């Protein structure tokens, strides 16, 4: 029996029309439901119940919940949200389903601890998550490292941070740099030196592009925060010597107070202001800086990592001026 050309033609046209209709209506359904999916996910907020319901396929279920946590964080972060209410529950379920899912502890803590808009601003939850991870994975050096990181940056508890780094350095496969971090910490090194070491270790031990960019941005900010006061000090030294402020950095070079025109980590020269203060030219490209911020500058809602190449960490070296 030969196929009917008429039927084939009509069915083909209908097929395309229905497909277009499906795409349109699906978008309408999505718009109507909004974030209903995640709220529904957490109708069952008990990790134990989810574990039972997964019928033993906990690994796959954990992967799905972890992806949901990432999606949730991404959506909130993108919207510049101040609250991340569902994040702890999603991470709790994920790590209960698969206690060996290190990525969920490490990135999860990274999502939870920084203050909004960079994170959820819940360092206690981040700490609890990492501690839960350590209980389930006591031989994992990265978790102790993250524990120390949180104690240092979020709680400023240097004793506990030092203890965590020390423990991390003794575990198998620990990055050699962690031992240096632990030792430096024990010597009560300066805050910026310590912070630089931590961000350098983070940069060297992660494979994730965004975390690398974040580490570079922090290292650059540390550099600017160190250089700007130093430059301002030299400007004041020039003033004391000549009785007036320099009009440009060239005058400082001529006076032997600088070897060359100082450049910020993005490669742009710093700007010398008429009142003797020093500013960066494009603060948008230097998130996290606390010094050298131009007057009346409003930072964007989200840090800009666009111009940071994680494969070429330019502008993070420790000795920027001489």
């Amino acid at each position, binding site marked *: 029996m030969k196929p009917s050309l008429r039927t*084939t033609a009509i*069915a083909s046209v209908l097929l395309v029309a*229905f497909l277009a209709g*499906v795409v349109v209506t699906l978008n309408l359904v999505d718009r109507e439901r909004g974030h209903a*999916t995640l709220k529904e996910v957490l*109708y069952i907020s008990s990790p134990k119940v989810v574990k039972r319901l997964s019928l033993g396929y906990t690994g796959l279920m954990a992967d*799905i919940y972890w992806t949901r946590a990432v999606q949730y964080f991404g959506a909130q972060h993108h919207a510049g949200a101040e609250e991340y209410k569902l994040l702890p529950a999603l991470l709790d379920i994920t790590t209960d389903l698969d206690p060996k899912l290190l990525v969920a502890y490490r990135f999860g803590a990274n999502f939870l601890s920084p203050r909004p808009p960079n994170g959820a601003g819940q360092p206690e939850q981040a700490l609890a998550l990492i501690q839960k991870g350590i209980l389930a994975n006591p031989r994992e050096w990265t978790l102790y490292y993250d524990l120390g990181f949180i104690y240092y940056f979020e709680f400023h508890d240097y004793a506990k941070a030092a203890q965590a780094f020390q423990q991390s350095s003794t575990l198998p496969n620990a990055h050699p740099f962690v031992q240096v971090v632990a030792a430096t910490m024990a010597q009560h090194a300066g805050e910026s030196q310590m912070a630089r070491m931590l961000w350098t270790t983070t940069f060297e031990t992660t494979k994730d592009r965004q975390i690398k960019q974040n580490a570079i941005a922090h290292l650059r900010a540390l550099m600017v925060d160190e250089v700007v006061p130093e430059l301002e000090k030299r400007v004041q030294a020039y003033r004391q010597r000549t009785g007036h402020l320099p009009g440009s950095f060239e005058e400082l070079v001529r006076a032997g107070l600088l070897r060359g025109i100082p450049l910020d980590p993005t490669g742009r020269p710093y700007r010398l202001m008429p009142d003797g203060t020093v500013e960066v030219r494009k603060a948008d490209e230097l998130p996290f800086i606390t010094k050298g911020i131009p007057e009346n500058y409003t930072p964007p809602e989200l840090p800009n990592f666009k111009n940071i190449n994680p494969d070429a960490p330019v502008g993070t070296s420790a000795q920027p001026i001489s």
Partner: protein
Amino acid sequence: MNSRIRLIAANTFREAVRDRVLYNLIAFALLMSGAAVIFGQISIDIERLVVVNLGLTAISLFGVVIAIFIGIGLVSKEIEKRTLYTMLSRPVRRWEFIVGKFFGLAGTLVVNTVLMALGVFAALLYVSRHLQASDSAILVALYFIVLEFLVVTALALLFSSFSSPLMSSVFAFSLFVIGSFAEDLRGFAAAAKGATHWIATAAAYLVPNLSALNVIGPVAHGETVAGNLILYNTAYALLYSALATCGAVLIFERRNLK
């Protein structure tokens, strides 16, 4: 609907009943009455929740299993018994055969769902002593379940039009599972970049979006379902079923039955 499609649909319904498909109602009745009695004794204040959750979930799962296992045999069984040749030698077009089969099985599932729904409401009445206004949302959940059956039936029919019953059931069941996570899939697609983004987006639109049809959780908690969602879900399920049935017609039209 023309008379030939109606006849094929009626025959499909009759055959399903003769195949003792409705026997699942006995299992369902036992499950519901057992749950209503047992949870009343061993738990605190969740009898109503259990009846709604368990009842609607059972209706959905029983129906999907019936849709898949009957749906995959709709074409192959007719070929195996050689009744298809008798039918097609009469003035019955191939597309009418496919469409008739779809309506026959959909009708069976609707009848099955209505009977089970009566069971759920009876159990609800037993545990709560009375029905409340918010229970009407259960009807919406039941309606969405029927829409889900239409989609699954159309998919089972699509696979049965070109594949063996075993493979068809595997394909249909896999799509049902993937469809239940369709929103996650679209989430992954949105987050992906480059070629992966386009491939994942295409896949996300091609698989059935069954997660939006599942409102059992909110309904069990007495939440109402937005009118727009009912409208869009209806349009979506009908269009998707039509899409899959069209695919089945196209394949079956060109299939060599010698």
